[in-house]
């Protein structure tokens, strides 16, 4: 009998109508990285929520160091040294990184904040684990990658010994993922126990010691990683064999639909430009991927391209028309569809119903309004049609509140809306972020179908697999510039990584022509 630091024995958690966890056992050793694998809805989040005190299980017990414990709320969990990085970060947007890290355990003298020591400790931790942060930046102004690093530091600052990571790599770049995985290993070596929730098999193979697989709320098994393979894990997770390859037909590349010339965009964070003089074309029938590590100007560029922000110089030509100074509506009408990076902030109005969200780009068209009055009947019909065509699932069909839909279906709704509207170019920014294997497969198919229809697709992605498998052409962005143009068939992940980290660059033809 081995010594486990945490034992979750025969946990059963029911919600009205479903059993989210059915008799699940999970044992965590001291100093190991333990992966918890399963598709979305398999019960992973519920299980760790039980461990973290967000829910109480109906049956089963939790033991720490062999002694039974009751975890009624996250504070109890914290007292037991259990820390968690949530999938949706729990940060105060208008506070700085440092303030967020010390939130709840603020060092103070007579009620006055003492930030100096805290800052020292945070910077030490930051240096030690290579978690680059700017302690004085406001959360709302920093990239998602940095927000996550703040979350991890928050846990480390509290000296938690059991660290739960809820799908931490979903938002990171390959290099960042590599760093994070290394951090996890280091943490484990120092005797901390890491519980790592994911549905990405490569990462498990790379970092985990053991892996527990859940499927549809049931316990499938726990395996030693050294005795297993990726294929076996995926079979355990999905219950069938799935292919990792994406099928793509050869298509003919057509004329240029989107042309970006010498575009420069100022940064909101610092005085330099976030995007420096970049130029490229997107043709009909191809998927151009803008790859790069998060925070190298992609977000700013896309904001400028789609009209959310202004460019400081350069021109953007869409279907032969100069849209550099056009309004967002005008761009949309001229043929630009945009799947935004943050589906909750930009993509959806969460307090609107699904049908209201599906006409978000089109409610003003004669089809859906008559002299300013919305034609609700037309909206309903259109929504029902889209829901059917794009297989958007929700509790109550068109009238479901967007807020209550699952992440995958929210994204499907956005994709349905953007694809179904007339467009020449589809700008898709991290469209698969945080989604499970099935949804990712679906979204990739949709992107490829756009390409096969002769539309141009500009894909911004941080996931190497996606970059390599989906795109026809890769443009690498580094510090606001395009540092390389690569053909995914002729390049390797390693080479791409070198470009992304700025270690390598080549000259792109278009830039030469333009200058």
């Amino acid at each position, binding site marked *: 009998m081995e010594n486990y630091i945490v034992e979750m024995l025969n946990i059963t958690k029911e919600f009205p109508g479903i059993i989210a966890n059915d008799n699940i056992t999970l044992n965590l050793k001291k100093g190991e990285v333990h992966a918890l694998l399963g598709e979305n809805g398999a019960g992973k989040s519920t299980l760790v929520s039980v461990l973290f005190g967000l829910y109480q299980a109906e049956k089963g017990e939790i033991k720490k160091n062999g002694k039974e414990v009751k975890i009624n709320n996250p504070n109890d969990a914290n007292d037991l040294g259990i820390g968690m990085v949530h999938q949706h970060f729990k940060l105060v947007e208008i506070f700085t990184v440092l303030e967020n890290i010390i939130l709840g355990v603020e060092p103070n003298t007579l009620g006055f904040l003492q930030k100096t020591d805290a800052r020292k400790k945070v910077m030490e931790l930051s240096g030690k684990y290579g978690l680059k942060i700017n302690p004085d930046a406001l959360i709302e102004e920093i990239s998602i990658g940095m927000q996550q690093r703040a979350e991890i530091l928050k846990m480390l600052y509290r000296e938690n010994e059991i660290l739960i990571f809820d799908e931490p790599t979903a938002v990171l770049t390959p290099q960042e993922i590599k760093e994070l995985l290394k951090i996890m290993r280091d943490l484990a070596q120092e005797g901390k126990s890491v519980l790592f929730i994911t549905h990405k098999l490569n990462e498990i193979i790379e970092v985990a010691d053991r892996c527990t697989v859940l499927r549809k709320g049931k316990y499938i098994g726990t395996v030693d990683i050294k005795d297993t393979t990726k294929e076996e894990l995926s079979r355990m997770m999905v219950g069938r064999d799935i292919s990792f390859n994406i099928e793509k037909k050869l298509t003919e590349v057509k004329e240029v639909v989107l042309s970006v010339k010498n575009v420069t965009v100022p940064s909101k964070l610092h005085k330099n430009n976030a995007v420096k003089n970049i130029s490229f074309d997107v043709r009909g029938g191809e998927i151009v991927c803008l790859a790069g590590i998060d925070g190298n100007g992609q977000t700013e560029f896309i904001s400028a391209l789609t009209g959310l922000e202004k460019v400081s110089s350069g021109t953007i030509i869409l279907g032969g028309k100069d849209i550099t100074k056009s309004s967002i509506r005008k761009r949309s009408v001229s043929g630009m569809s945009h799947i935004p990076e943050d589906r909750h902030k930009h993509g959806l109005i969460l307090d609107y119903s699904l049908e209201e969200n599906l006409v978000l780009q089109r409610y003003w068209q004669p089809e859906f309004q008559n002299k300013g009055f919305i034609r609700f009947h037309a909206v309903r019909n259109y929504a029902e049609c889209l829901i059917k065509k794009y297989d958007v699932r929700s509790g109550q069909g068109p009238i479901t509140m967007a807020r209550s839909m699952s*992440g995958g279906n929210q994204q499907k709704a956005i994709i349905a809306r953007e694809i179904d509207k007339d467009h020449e170019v589809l700008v898709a920014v991290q469209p698969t972020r945080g989604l499970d294997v099935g949804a990712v497969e679906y979204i990739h198919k949709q992107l490829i179908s756009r390409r096969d229809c002769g539309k141009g697709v500009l894909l911004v992605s941080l996931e190497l697999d996606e970059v390599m498998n989906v795109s026809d052409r890769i443009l690498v962005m580094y510090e606001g510039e395009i540092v390389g143009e690569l053909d995914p068939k002729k390049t390797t992940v390693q080479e791409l990584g070198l470009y992304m980290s700025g270690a390598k660059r080549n000259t792109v033809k278009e830039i030469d022509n333009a200058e």
Partner: protein
Amino acid sequence: MQSKKSSSRNKGITLKNITESKGFTAFTSVLLAIFLGLIFGFIVMAFAGPQNVFKGFSYILLGGFGRFGDVLYFATPILMTGLSVGLAFRMGLFNIGASGQYTMGMFFALYVGFMWDLPPEIHWIAAIIAGMVGGMLWGFIPGIFKAFLNVNEVITTIMFNYIGMYLVDMLIQGNLVLYLSSNARTNYLPRTVQLPSLGIMGSNVNVGIIMAVIIGIILFIVLEKTTFGYELKATGFNKHASNYAGMKGKTNIILTMVIAGGLAGLGGAFAILAPSAIAGSSMTYEPINIIAVNGFNGIAVALLGSANPIGIIFSATFISFIQRGGTLANLVGYKPEIIDVVIAVIIYFSAFAMIMNSGIGRFIKKYIIKKPHTNILLEDLEAVEEEIEVQNKEAE
């Protein structure tokens, strides 16, 4: 397990059911809020004068029935300011400036009433429109500040309350036609500028209330049925997403503030142009450097009416009703100040309870009834349900 799920699905399958249940919760929460407000008001009243508390309180509760014309008359201005605050609120703007807009509306109406020489049939209509324009102007300026300079509308509208009030006082005192300096108030308006009375004996109730109710209904239709309402609510819910969808945020902010200002301005016009039950007199404005309280009451009206135009029609009537009844409590020895306090307690506690209701409701659901309520979980539930569905399909 399966049957449970499907039954809950069936329940929520029609739009009718949803709106009904939503409306029902909103309605019950308003009733609960009012009930709490009344209890608190009663306690305060009992402290102020225990001997007649039951009698006095029954006047507050029931006195309004005997003077329903007056209830409607006094409901008119707060209904308009309530609509003003409520509409801006739906857009995500907090219009504290209804008082200033209301005062500007009064002044513009007075000015047209005294200074313009118009045929009697349209004189009062012109004065109403002038009042609306005055309020619009006072909503437009904070709107511009908000849209183009991103100055918080709460600050600008508060300041514009003062600017408007002092400006109006100054302009009135400087105008010898409007101002009767011996009485420190404005002159009596000519009969032709006063609104037609509804002819209820001993009451000033006039066509203003009818117009106000119609405006409320129009606003409801605008909010629920038009693309402008769709944009307005979308911006109120999520201004980033509405911007992403190409809605003109700045134009909409200004437009909303202009309309909100116009509504409050109309309230001012309705108030000052009301006919007097005493022949040969009229409503008057006293330039005594006091901010119009009807503007602030509009905030309570809007909150109690859940920022819904139809709800606001009822909440304005209710508040006016309580106020009218309150004046009768004088008969059993309560001083007007005490009655004002009691009424203020009832109104504001009700409005406060309205806000707390949602907060408390959430708290109860989250901590006391241990039901799934977080987003993470909903996603899980959805996903599991989806899987069950898929399984069922496959089984078929």
